[in-house]
């Protein structure tokens, strides 16, 4: 195999190329490999000509990001299918948030398979955080590979404009354009947590189905830690539930975080959980708290109300996912609290994790009563029952989670509770 050092070029055979870029990994820093499809001017035609983790295809699939794992990123390039105006496909590596330089890596290789040349880019001594690795380019009706090995100290933010890609400064979310902002956040999240991104997209489908246009809300997860929940926590099913609430929180939330409360005999303000912490939430809860002998909804509702009375200066809607497996011991307080809360911008979604069986009817009865509680300013609560919180599909779950929410938004807005 012919090895090209930086600057060297060699002819390629054929027009369909399978590219393996071996770049290794840097502890504590993410490395992303991207491809830019550029014209004779050296620039992309538009943002669609950048193929990266957030956009795995370019030019109708002529360039594809196949995989990125184990220190290796693979692309396919069907040069024959590229539009005539695309002169080059340029492969780059960037270190996310400039957390390291390429100096930390062994040489990066760009291989196109047997019979084709390979580019070898030494990294020792490099100060850059964005590197142009190699390019596949047209030359007299055929295609060539050039090893480049030049880059930028300013990472992707410096590299992208070099190819004509506009990188927008990350700014606080303007309320008027939350969707655009969400797209940007999702692209950023896709590399860290593609599963969550997929869930967030499913939330979006549910929102559209239910005609929910109000884009922002605070999301709260209130979890029952009474002793009877033990089996559910151990089963991993609560983790599934947490992921789904996190996705809702990410889609809705003003800060990409959810507020977590725990209750049994007592109420505990656990704190906020974001995209970095939600997967470990159940584990962290079990390390920090013991399951409690007792179930007191009323106290929990009281604590959550107090929390948002202080912590919601903007008057955003608050969506509370209230998860319990049993009947409460403070029914009168619960009813009083829920009635009082009906004049506040909080929507209560009760999820009863109740299998049909002994006393299930009694346990369900009170939650059903709460759903239809009289004496409230608006209907601020909905209840649904599940035996297994992981059983519904994502889509079914988000539909359940969104049931009655839009009705409440409309009623609360009409009543002047929501602005």
């Amino acid at each position, binding site marked *: 195999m012919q090895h*090209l*050092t*930086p*600057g*060297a*070029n060699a002819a390629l055979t054929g027009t369909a190329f399978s590219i393996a870029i071996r770049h290794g990994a840097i502890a504590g820093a993410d490395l992303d490999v991207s491809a830019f499809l550029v014209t004779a001017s050296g620039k992309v035609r538009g943002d669609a000509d950048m193929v990266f983790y957030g956009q795995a295809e370019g030019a109708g699939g002529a360039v594809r990001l196949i995989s990125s794992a184990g220190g290796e990123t693979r692309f396919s390039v069907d040069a024959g299918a590229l539009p005539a105006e695309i002169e080059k496909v340029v492969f780059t590596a960037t270190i996310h948030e400039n957390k390291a330089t390429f100096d930390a890596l062994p040489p990066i290789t760009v291989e196109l398979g047997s019979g084709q040349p390979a580019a070898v880019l030494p990294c020792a*001594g490099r*100060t*850059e955080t964005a590197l*142009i690795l190699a390019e596949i380019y047209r*030359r007299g009706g055929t295609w*060539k590979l*050039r*090893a*480049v*090995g*030049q*880059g*930028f*100290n*300013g990472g992707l933010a*410096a590299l992208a404009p*070099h190819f004509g890609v506009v990188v927008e400064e990350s700014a606080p979310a303007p309320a008027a354009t939350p969707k655009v902002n969400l797209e940007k956040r999702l692209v950023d999240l896709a590399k860290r947590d593609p599963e969550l991104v997929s869930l967030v997209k499913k939330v979006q489908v549910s929102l559209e189905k239910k005609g929910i246009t109000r884009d922002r809300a605070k999301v709260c997860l209130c979890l029952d830690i009474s002793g009877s929940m033990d089996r559910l926590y151990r089963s991993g099913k609560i983790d599934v539930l947490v992921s789904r609430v996190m996705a809702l929180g990410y889609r809705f939330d003003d800060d990409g975080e959810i507020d977590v409360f725990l209750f049994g005999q007592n109420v505990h303000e656990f704190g906020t959980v974001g995209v970095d912490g939600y997967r470990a939430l159940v584990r962290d809860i079990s390390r920090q708290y013991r399951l409690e002998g007792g179930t007191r909804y009323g106290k929990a509702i009281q604590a959550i109300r107090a929390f948002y009375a202080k912590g919601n200066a903007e008057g955003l809607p608050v969506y509370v996912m209230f998860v319990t497996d049993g009947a409460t011991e403070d029914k009168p307080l619960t009813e009083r609290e829920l009635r009082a809360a009906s004049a506040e911008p909080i929507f209560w979604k009760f999820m009863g994790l109740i299998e049909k069986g002994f006393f299930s009817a009694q346990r369900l009865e009170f939650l059903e009563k709460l759903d239809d509680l009289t004496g409230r300013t608006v209907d601020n609560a909905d209840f649904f029952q599940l035996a297994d919180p992981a059983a519904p599909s994502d889509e079914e779950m988000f539909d359940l989670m969104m049931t009655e929410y839009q009705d409440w938004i409309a009623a609360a807005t009409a009543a002047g509770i929501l602005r």
Partner: protein
Amino acid sequence: MPVSLSKGGNVSLSKEAPGLTAVTVGLGWDARATDGADFDLDASVFICGEDGKIMSDADFVFYNNKVGAAGAVEHQGDNRTGQGDGDDEAVKVDLARLPANVRKLVFAVTIHEAEARKQSFGQVSNAFIRVVNQAGGAEIVRYDLSEDYGTESAMIFGEVYKNGEDWKFKAVGQGYAGGLAPLASAHGVNLG
């Protein structure tokens, strides 16, 4: 219409531009767009006799010795005048005034401190050499080298040579590893 040559090709300047007496040889490359040490490229000319070597050290024209062949070859230094649009360096050659024993002018470009800066021609974009008729300013021939280099730090871009009574230009694109020293030695420069 200027002639565009590829590596190894040649053209008769005298035929392309009848009555030609003086040319400007322009050399160019694109400035570095990426971060890192700038590419500092220097053009030089070897004024060679029959054996392909210089006849005296004065026949090596470069940034420290800008005039050769009794003034018939003049290195313009960094081209800051705008003359010769797009050229980074230019050398004026009065063909009519060149001594009769001059058979060949070799135009080379070297990357200054290439080794220390880990630079090579392959990292320089869009390098070219062109020959312009001083009378009228028309480009006679151009050679784009960008596909013909790789890891070298010194390159012969092209040569203007005498073939009978005609002046011709050849697109050379020959690289030398190790920069100016081996290139100069090959052309008879005594680097002492």
